């Protein structure tokens, strides 16, 4: 709980600071846009965070956005599949990739880093090949207006991705912190062997985490594709897996596994987005975008380490 409080405090301080320096931060357009981004990023960060809690890592989500985005565009604009069906196929594909990762890691005993690194390369390459390296758009949206309006729209004044994130976060909070399955996720992350000696089917638990990550990445892929409205196969979603990992670690997940919380992951995501927003609003050269994030994460980790060694 201490870690969550720490990051929530940091988030609040940062918001006040940015708002003081540039009142634009509090403009309705800015808040809407930022919360839309937090929603999208938060959803797949939760997936990656759960994988991290089991002691694994998922590097493939960024490339999955490109592959699934390209496919979604093709399904809707070229093949004219019904939108609902296309969405279902994308979600199923994301889950299927997660199943493959999970099986390679548990059945074959491969390291998560390697499996998902290969995924990162493979899906990016496939996306570019399928799209012939051309940018895929959604055109006028004929035939799937409702889908576009739904995922780019708002519930009242709250952007749909943020609404979805709240729903996903609530569900995953219950799953992770209140359910038997959630306890098992922490247990295998802490010590897979001891978990196995307690009768937990650790392979199934670990593999399932990659399925959750794949599924949530597919949800985010749909949101992201419509948010950018065009999918450039070579750059779409590039580096996004690192945002997720950074958000999870900032939010208190340990890369050794067995530690972390949903509140922390969501707060970590929000912090990263507010930082990017800060770079925009305060006229920091946008080329420094990554540098600012890197510095803040590093400082956060150092402060945490110092506080930890004092207690």
């Amino acid at each position, binding site marked *: 709980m201490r870690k969550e409080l720490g990051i929530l405090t940091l988030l609040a301080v940062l918001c006040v600071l940015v708002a003081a320096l540039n009142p634009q931060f509090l403009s309705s357009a800015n808040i809407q846009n930022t919360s839309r981004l937090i929603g999208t990023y938060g959803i797949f960060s939760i997936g990656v965070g759960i994988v991290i809690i089991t002691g694994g890592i998922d590097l493939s989500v960024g490339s999955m956005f490109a592959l699934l985005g390209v496919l979604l565009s093709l399904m809707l604009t070229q093949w004219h599949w019904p939108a609902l069906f296309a969405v279902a196929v994308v979600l199923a594909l994301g889950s299927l990739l997660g199943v493959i990762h999970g099986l390679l890691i548990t059945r074959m005993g491969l390291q998560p880093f390697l499996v998902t690194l290969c995924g990162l390369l493979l899906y990016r390459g496939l996306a570019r090949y399928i799209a012939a390296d051309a940018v895929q758009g959604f055109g006028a949206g004929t035939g799937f207006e409702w889908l576009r309006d739904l995922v780019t729209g708002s519930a009242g004044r709250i952007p749909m991705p943020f609404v979805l994130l709240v729903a996903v976060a609530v569900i995953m909070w219950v799953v992770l912190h209140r359910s038997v399955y959630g306890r098992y996720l*922490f247990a295998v992350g802490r010590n897979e*062997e001891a*978990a196995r000696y307690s009768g937990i089917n650790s392979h199934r638990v670990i593999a399932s985490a990659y399925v959750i990550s794949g599924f949530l990445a597919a949800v985010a892929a749909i949101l992201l594709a419509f948010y950018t409205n065009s999918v450039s196969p070579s750059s779409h979603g590039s580096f996004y897996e690192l945002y997720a990992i950074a958000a999870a670690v900032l939010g208190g997940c340990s890369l050794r596994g067995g530690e972390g919380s949903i509140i922390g992951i969501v707060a970590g995501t929000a912090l990263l987005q507010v930082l990017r927003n800060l770079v925009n609003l305060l006229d920091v050269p946008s080329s420094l975008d990554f540098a600012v994030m890197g510095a803040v994460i590093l400082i956060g980790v150092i402060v945490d380490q110092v506080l930890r060694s004092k207690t």
Partner: protein
Amino acid sequence: MLEMSRVSKKFPGVTALDSVEFSVRPGEVVALVGENGAGKSTLMKILAGIYAPDAGAIRFDGKLVSIHSPRDSTRLGIGTIHQELEVIDTLDVAANVFLGREPVWGGPLRLVDRRKIHAEARGVLLRIGLDISPDRLLRDLSTAQKQLVEIARALSQDVRLLIMDEPTSSLTLSETDRLIQVVKDLRSNRVSVVYISHRLQEIERLADRVVVLRDGRNAGELHRGDISHPRMVQLMVGREVKTLYADAAPSRGPVRIELRNFRTQRYPAHPVSLSIRAGEILGLAGLIGAGRSELAKAVFGVDRPRKGEIVLDGAVVNIHSSGDAIQRGIYLIPEDRRNSGLLTGMSVRENITLPNLEQFSSAGWIRQADETASAQASCADLKIKTPSVETSAGSLSGGNQQKIVLAKWLSLKPRVILFDEPTRGIDVAAKAEIYQLMRRLAAEGVAILMISSDMEEILGNSDRVAVMHEGRLTGILQRPDCTEEAIMTLAVA
């Protein structure tokens, strides 16, 4: 040679040492005994330069010395073999022996002089009778061999005083004999040894003098002629303990579990057949590497058996995973408590309820109040000493940790419990409690298999003793026939 006088050390909330006197003469083997928490480790950590004493004086060779760091300790000629071995598994024997003080050549390049460390390592290994190549990687050695490598490391630094903390806790009988011989050789070379152990039989055989600590104070001292098991126990607990072991159950039930031609992956050529009755404790003796743990793991389903049948209460059962075994009431208390038995980073509550969370959940949702209440009840029942059930399990003492591992199973319905080295590294009082628990379970009709390398435990606690040697079951002894000699004969067969 070494004199520590009026040494005191306080930690927040506890006085670990209170005016303790301790001395060692050249070439003397001094056994330091006491229950866990008596202050043995703290005293030795002061000598090793890990803790600084709050008060007291340390004299070495008559001169007042202060030991501020492990380096100071090494410089005085004090070497320590810790209970958790400090070797690097991925390096070879020679590199481990010379770790941190490698001879170099090549001027500013500071290259390791491999030829020299290998030649010197070979010499030191021979001194302690360890006949292995210095090129072997540590991960390919047995625990006993690793320990001897650590002793070789200490000897190569010309130690004059060697501190050994529970050196035999993971060794088998013959390995223990070997180690005792090494210590005796050291003694005849005028090296002094401080020997910390819970195995009082070894101390009877080995020690010139026994120093007993109790609650951070000197509780007494025994000299060569007076050293005996009951007197040590008496000083350790401050009262006379009649016997550690509970009485055997008067009668036994029908056969609860039977292994028929059971083969493990490790020893596929040797089928094992044995049976345990309800209410019976079957001791399983043997040397390390005899395949006892492998047998238990295969029965429990964490390892896959090669072939054979498990018959439980008359019916053949298929066990493919630990989940299958647990469902049928077959539980394992594993050998490696900290890595297999316990999730050290999680709370006492989470550990105790892990295998039976289903009991405290509705539709996958944990009922936290029920869970906490059950964990608290288990702690009370097994007398687990913990500030609260939310305390991290890893922070408790060995005995309490072992009781947590037991507590995991007791709220389920045990039919067979496999204990693998149930009291390794646990103090006398907690040992007695665990033995009583085993008897209580047996009286409730549980069939118990107790794997142990501790001969006292095997002899004192078993209704029958099965002995294994390199994967083969070499014999089963009825209680009247159980003697140390009879078991050893079968174990080395």
